[in-house]
């Protein structure tokens, strides 16, 4: 398990757009972090620095003791798994099983280890029953889970998820949430990029809010949700229950039980 560190990272695209401005932050092993912020705030750009797909224009990115500039993307893949938003961009094998085995094989694991990791990843994503099917015969929501499994099977200490819940119905979102919880329980670091603030509130204990390429807020959920004014700057709306609690002037809560408890207590006090 390894820590991540961005040290005064700035990044400008060749087109001249500066997408990150002097970002410094560290992520401890095992944290579950959400990157939130409006479209174009720099979330994807930041995440792509974590596995070397982009290199900082200035500053540096440390993945454990590795500077991303000194290692290829294929090497960094052993430390940081990155699930792309669109499974269509990676699926090419004829069976779900083979697709999931592609990553661990690239990392040079022994066949027995590959088989074990594939089985675990398929179980974690509840795809064991379709292991022999052609990935493109699956519904898009399931295909997304194939992409997820294919990265989980690489057994990286850090996993980045770019918009894991888009295109999923309520059940699919719940399934992805369960997968995230299982990966967290395994002690791996998870970084989730998402516009689904409820999903972030449920599964990420730390929120990093980006706006205009800078970190506007960074902290535990309760601290971040308390700054409605700053969240508004980058078009993030706190979860419904948080807004309800704020309106009722109750302590912040993003799950029904604590909110109900607080409500009952305030009734009793009255």
């Amino acid at each position, binding site marked *: 398990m390894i820590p991540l560190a961005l040290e005064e990272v700035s990044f400008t695209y060749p087109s001249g757009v500066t997408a990150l401005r002097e970002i410094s932050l560290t992520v401890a092993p095992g944290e579950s972090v959400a990157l939130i912020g409006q479209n174009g705030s720099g979330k994807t750009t930041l995440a*792509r620095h974590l596995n070397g797909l982009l290199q900082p224009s200035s500053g540096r990115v440390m993945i454990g003791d590795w500077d991303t500039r000194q290692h*290829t993307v*294929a090497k960094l893949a052993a430390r940081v798994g990155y699930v*792309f938003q*669109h499974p269509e*961009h990676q699926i*090419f094998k004829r069976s779900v099983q083979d697709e999931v085995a592609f990553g661990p094989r*690239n990392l040079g694991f022994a066949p027995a280890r590959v088989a074990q990791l594939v089985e675990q990843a398929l179980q974690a994503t509840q795809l064991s029953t379709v292991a022999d099917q052609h990935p493109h015969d699956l519904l898009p929501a399931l295909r997304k889970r194939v992409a997820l499994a294919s990265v989980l099977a*690489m057994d990286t200490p850090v996993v980045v998820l770019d918009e894991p819940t888009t295109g999923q119905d309520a059940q699919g979102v719940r399934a992805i949430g369960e997968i995230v919880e299982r990966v967290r329980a395994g002690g791996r670091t998870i970084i989730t990029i998402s516009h689904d603030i409820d999903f972030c509130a449920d599964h990420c204990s730390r929120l990093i809010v980006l706006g205009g390429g800078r970190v506007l807020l960074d902290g535990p959920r309760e601290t971040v949700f308390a700054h409605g004014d700053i969240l508004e700057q980058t078009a993030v709306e706190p979860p419904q229950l948080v807004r309800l609690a704020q309106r009722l002037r109750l302590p912040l809560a993003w799950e029904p039980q604590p909110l109900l408890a607080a409500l009952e207590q305030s009734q009793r006090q009255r």
Partner: protein
Amino acid sequence: MIALYQHRPSPVHQLHPLTKLAISFGVIVLALGLGVDWVPLVLYLLVLVPLSALARVAGPFVRTSLRILLPFAISLFVIQSLFFPEGNTILARLGPLSIKAEGVRFAFAGTVRILLMAGALLLTLLTTHPGLLLTGLVQKGFPPALAYVIVTTLQIVPQMRERASTIIDAQRARGLETQGSLLVRARALLPLIGPLVLGSLLDVEERSLALEAHVQRHNAQDQPLPSAGPHLGAGAQMVDCAGHARGDWLPAC
């Protein structure tokens, strides 16, 4: 994102799209009609390149047309110089094979024709917003569906390039080595081509759905197309719509 089109303030951009198309085809007909080997090259260098400079797109123009030409040029020269059937003037021998002057000449003629045709169309595409081109074609009585298919198909190459780079990123992130020996790179090909071809097929399907939906809406309201004025007409909207639909497949990166 409008792929090939380069927005610049230039007199060439101001021309009516059909005028530009007519010039393109005129140059092509002239070049091929004269039947002299070196005429296409001269027209490319003395007409198309200066026009592209006037349009302030000389850089992308030359770069893109050479990039289109390269695979054709290589295969033409390799195959024709070695295997041209009526060749008997031998320039050089490579073991059992020999390079024949007639073949080289044939390959040269073919290459410069392709260069000219690609260049002539490219000049129009680089300087004409696809929406305006579409609107222009439809106003001259072109069937809208056909015009749409033609214009969007012309945009496919840059889209494929963009898609390919996303796919390469996705596979490198799964530990695929794409740099190194020839063998390493050859092995990297399969994981790239699969998603590229499939993604493009899905794209075509999506495009046909978008087209169907538009035709249905169009039939329901029977709206006339607005003229190509200072703002872009319905054609531009259609192209942009297709772009957005595509955006669901590709991240904006």
